[in-house]
């Protein structure tokens, strides 16, 4: 084994300063295993050393928040004695190296974060971002990632009900795979990770430990370069079958009183799970690695402490309940081993084959973890766009937009995901702005969405951050649900570059302001930095996962319009074309400031739309987002396979700007009594306007331009199957 010195520390990803700090804490040269423990605990992935100062500024409280950030997942009270437990997490780097397994184990990891708290997972979502579709590599990654998400989620029997797919060349060498899981628990039976009870057994359950993913946490904390090929042996393979058994076994055990504390083994495996449990509980731990179930012979202490083998959990049990627990894990054919006990020493002590492999004080490992106030530079404001002429006409632009990779149908993707297992999926993918999943045995349902528009964040990180939260709020409101809380997944480039850190800080400011204004706190999240390839960063991508609640699932509306309805706009269209998809796809420019977000208007309009839906006066609803108003309308028409006749835009806005501007805080409602809706809107100080009527087979514009909805559907559905199959 190599000598421990500064050079080795550097190989492990510790800076000279950080290594000095290790020496100070230990008062001696650390052992190889100890150095491994420090390096993973102080990696960006585990310590949040670059992002912590900013994350602290996010609003995390509300009367309905039961547990905010800091636990394995966020917990909110959704009524009827139920808690929703949810979080989103990235698996970007592993998905680039091995798309199938990277995505699959990403889903597995986030599921464990949720069921470790006592929740039965009821829904998965996935926010995916890929490079230029023209590259063969992109195709291979899309294929692998989608198969991986489905392969894992379908097998564990948790419906995958929503997500996003976008393309941009900035993700060419660094796709983003962000997976979100939502679970439901009795709100009085939430399981936490703080260990307690001197002498209590520390129990390992699940799969055996192999040499998988050693140093995965540090890999997630470095940029890719030409050498990353050589880092490949760290790929972890998921076993969703074992995960399914683990879910059932853990939930069965959680129905007893055996568990004192429980924590999944995620990044940095046994190290981070044991350090976090004992650290939070203010106790110590002694581990004897000889008892760890091992898949391969000859594993060292270092390997076992750092392995990222999947489908494993660590628990502290009441000593008199060990047999109850063992019987349950035996029933499910899962490994169960007592590998240590809780001590009062405040230290983590690791023994293997009679050798003391590690002896580290826990407090300084946490308290003295590096924390960086990295320099930031503000993103310069974009020059105003000015007026842009319409080169092709409205109908031709619509046809192009509706078929482009960023706006075309995602059915090819979600048709590979089981979205109905559980029998509670009220709104499936493609059917509504947010997925709606009922709680088994209740009328109540949750509404779920993931959102961010990276090109807005790139142009103006603060506005873009704000917009991401506002869009999540809108998507939840658009099905009639009350937005309760969000989880975030901050995907950015290299934090040591001031312009990247500036994007991060500004995006957090934007998210925070929106959370406050919309009463939509952050309850969990994840940060993924160093998303760069050969020095080029990705578009800053703070993905927002939103959760809302409906008291009665029957109130939920979808986005498909039907015959004989009036289409009503709620909100103001100013015709904002900066950073719009129209500008990119039709005018070939990626310029201008993103659309401004007026948080007070978001709140007012969202509250109004929701109250109209709950009053039963709305048949269908869709928010205006990517592609603008006409794209939103067209999606409603394609969903219902119905035509419409639309009124002319107002004279004050050029037609293409009116139809394709990406103005915020706007919704399209399909109603049967438009005058009632418009009168109520005006009484509430909410702008409204009649857009047209549904009927027939064609979309008809006021100037006579006509296109059959069937032709639009065909174009909308063309891209993915043609590209992939």
């Amino acid at each position, binding site marked *: 084994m190599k000598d421990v010195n500064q050079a080795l520390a550097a190989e492990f990803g510790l800076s000279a300063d950080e290594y000095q700090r290790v020496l100070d804490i230990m008062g001696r040269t650390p052992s190889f295993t100890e150095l491994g423990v420090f390096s993973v605990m102080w990696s960006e992935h585990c310590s949040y050393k670059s992002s912590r100062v900013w994350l602290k500024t996010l609003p995390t409280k509300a009367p309905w928040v039961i547990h905010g950030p800091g636990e394995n997942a966020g917990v909110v009270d959704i009524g009827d004695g139920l808690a929703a437990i949810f979080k989103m997490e990235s698996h970007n780097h592993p998905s680039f*190296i*091995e798309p199938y*397994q990277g995505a699959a184990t990403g889903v597995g990891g986030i599921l464990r974060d949720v069921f470790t708290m006592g929740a039965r997972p009821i829904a998965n979502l996935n926010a995916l971002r890929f490079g230029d579709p023209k590259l063969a590599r992109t195709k291979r990654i899309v294929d692998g990632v989608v198969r991986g998400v489905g392969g894992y989620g379908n097998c564990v029997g948790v419906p995958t009900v929503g997500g996003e797919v976008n393309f941009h060349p900035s993700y060419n060498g660094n796709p983003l795979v962000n997976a979100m899981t939502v679970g439901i628990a009795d709100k009085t039976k939430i399981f936490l990770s703080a260990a307690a009870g001197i002498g209590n057994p520390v129990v390992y359950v699940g*799969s055996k430990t*192999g*040499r*998988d993913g050693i140093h995965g946490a540090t890999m997630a904390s470095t940029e890719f370069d030409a050498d990353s090929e050589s880092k*490949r*042996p760290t*790929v*972890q*393979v*998921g*076993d969703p*079958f*074992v995960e399914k058994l683990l879910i059932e076994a853990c939930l069965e055990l959680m129905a007893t009183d055996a568990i004192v504390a429980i924590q999944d083994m995620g990044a940095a495996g046994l190290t981070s799970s044991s350090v976090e449990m004992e650290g939070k509980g203010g106790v110590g731990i002694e581990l004897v690695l000889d008892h760890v179930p091992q*898949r*391969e012979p000859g594993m060292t202490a270092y390997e076992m402490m750092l392995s990222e*083998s*999947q489908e494993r959990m660590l628990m502290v049990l009441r000593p008199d309940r060990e047999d109850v627990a063992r019987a349950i894990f035996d029933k499910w*054919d899962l490994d169960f081993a007592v590998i240590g006990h809780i001590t009062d020493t405040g230290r983590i002590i690791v023994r293997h084959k009679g050798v003391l492999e590690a002896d580290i004080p826990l407090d300084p490992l946490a308290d003295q973890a590096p924390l960086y106030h990295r320099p930031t530079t503000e993103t310069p404001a974009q020059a105003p766009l000015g007026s842009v002429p319409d080169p092709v006409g409205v109908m031709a632009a619509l046809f192009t937009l509706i078929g482009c990779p960023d706006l075309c149908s995602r059915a090819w993707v979600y048709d590979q995901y089981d979205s109905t297992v559980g029998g509670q999926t009220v709104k499936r993918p493609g059917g509504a702005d947010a997925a709606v999943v009922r709680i088994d045995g209740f009328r109540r349902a949750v509404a779920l969405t993931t959102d961010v528009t990276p090109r807005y964040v790139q142009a103006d990180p603060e506005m873009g951050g704000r917009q991401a939260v506002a869009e999540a709020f809108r998507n939840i409101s658009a099905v009639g649900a009350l937005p309760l809380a969000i989880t975030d997944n901050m995907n950015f480039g290299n934090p040591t570059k001031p312009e990247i850190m500036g994007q991060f800080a500004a995006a957090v400011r934007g998210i925070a302001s929106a959370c406050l204004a919309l009463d939509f706190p952050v309850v969990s999240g994840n940060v993924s930095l160093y998303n760069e390839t050969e020095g080029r960063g990705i578009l800053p991508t703070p993905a927002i996962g939103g959760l809302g609640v409906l008291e009665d699932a029957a109130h939920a509306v979808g986005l498909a319009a039907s015959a004989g309805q009036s289409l009503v706009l709620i909100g103001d269209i100013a015709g904002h074309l900066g950073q719009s998809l129209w500008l990119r796809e039709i005018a070939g420019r990626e310029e201008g400031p993103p659309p401004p977000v007026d948080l007070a208007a978001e709140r007012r309009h969202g509250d109004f739309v929701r109250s109209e839906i709950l009053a039963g006066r709305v048949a269908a609803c869709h928010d205006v987002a990517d592609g603008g108003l006409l794209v939103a309308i067209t999606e409603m028409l394609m969903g219902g396979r119905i035509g419409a006749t639309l009124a002319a835009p107002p004279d004050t806005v050029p037609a293409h700007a009116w139809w394709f501007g990406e103005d915020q805080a706007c919704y399209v409602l399909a109603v049967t009594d438009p005058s009632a809706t418009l009168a109520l809107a005006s009484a509430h100080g909410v702008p409204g306007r009649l857009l047209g009527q549904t009927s027939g087979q064609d979309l008809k514009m006021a100037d006579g331009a006509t296109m059959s909805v069937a032709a639009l559907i065909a174009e909308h559905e063309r891209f993915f199957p043609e590209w992939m199959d």
Partner: protein
Amino acid sequence: MKAVVTVMLKEGVLDPQGKAIGHALGVLGFTGVGEVRVGKRIELDLAETDPEAARKSAEDMGRSLLANLVIESFQVEIV
């Protein structure tokens, strides 16, 4: 000419399928079954008549498509 490409998971990579099969064989009453590993056998009919050229071509196929070299390795046999 027929080429057989055998693709197996690399040493140390978890083989969930093999594990489950091993377990099921135990349930069926087969004793003394240790590790089980599952791989693929891909039989290719090749127009090529020169064995060395056929081998080279099958090896190219293995590298570029048949095996995922991140987690798998492969062998070629000409029969």
